[in-house]
């Protein structure tokens, strides 16, 4: 599997993501600076990491979504490459309109940082095939703006089409319908607030995140 992690100014989980990919799949990940206009044409996986790109100025992910590299990410998504946005990366994907909806300030106002139990709502995506038979998985969240919002029609469509992939067992931030992660209609772009990159080996408290990267590698 050939993979890349995009680095924006203010990204702080880029190295975690690369470590997670490498430890989970054995494949090396390359770092790509946000100012690049081109990506290797044969990437199987592109990860937009967590952090505070551009200081979260204006809105989380809004400025990063206009970074030069994002045109190349969009082209790769059109080509069918797997794109994963984790935490701030999910916010960037929504701002770039690669995924529907938006992330609001947490309903409880607080930054929430803790382990969460997730229901795998759809184990038939290329990101979640490895979770088949698993009722719940554990990862951690760390966000102040992880409250997923979309209008009712969009939420109905997401649920109806199996685009809701992860759901919180206990909603930590007020997300609509407990949604923790969604895929696009085509199923090759995933955004999630919990961090698989902080749950890829038992020493981290959970190795459930590794399965996500392994699932992508298997489908590559």
């Amino acid at each position: 599997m050939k993979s890349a992690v995009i680095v924006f100014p203010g990204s702080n989980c880029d190295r975690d993501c690369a470590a997670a990919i490498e430890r989970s799949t054995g494949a090396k990940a390359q770092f790509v600076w946000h100012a690049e206009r081109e990506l290797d044409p044969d990437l199987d996986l592109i990860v937009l990491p967590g952090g505070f790109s551009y200081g979260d100025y204006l809105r989380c992910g809004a400025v990063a979504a206009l970074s030069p590299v994002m045109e190349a990410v969009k082209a790769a998504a059109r080509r069918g490459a797997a794109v994963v946005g984790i935490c701030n990366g999910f916010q960037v994907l929504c701002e770039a309109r690669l995924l529907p909806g938006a992330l609001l300030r947490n309903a409880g106002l607080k930054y929430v940082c803790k382990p969460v139990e997730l229901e795998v709502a759809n184990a038939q995506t290329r990101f979640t095939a490895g979770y088949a038979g698993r009722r719940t998985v554990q990862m951690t969240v760390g966000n102040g703006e992880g409250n997923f919002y979309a209008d009712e029609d969009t939420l109905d469509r997401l649920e109806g089409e199996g685009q809701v992939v992860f759901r919180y067992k206990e909603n930590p931030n007020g997300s609509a319908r407990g949604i923790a992660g969604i895929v696009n209609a085509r199923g090759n772009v995933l955004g999630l607030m919990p961090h698989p990159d902080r749950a890829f080996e038992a020493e981290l408290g959970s190795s459930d995140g590794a399965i996500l990267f392994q699932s992508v590698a298997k489908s590559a």
Partner: protein
Amino acid sequence: MAEGRLQATVEVFLKPGVLDVQGKAVEKALHGLGWPGVSDVRVGKTIRFALDPADPAGAEAEVRDMCERLLANTIIESYRVEIA
């Protein structure tokens, strides 16, 4: 101000119905200070900039385009443009 330069003011608020937790917190604090009559507090932002438009008549449309593409996220926010 230089000749032909306009001043643009953009106000951005979360749409009605979208939870504004900042507004809620401010409202609660105002109640605590002894203003129980305060309700529906919304906290938004104002963005101001000077603009030297190619076509002054099209300045507002230009600023609205900026709002659609960056200054507001129209999934959750509405905006108001003022050109002076």
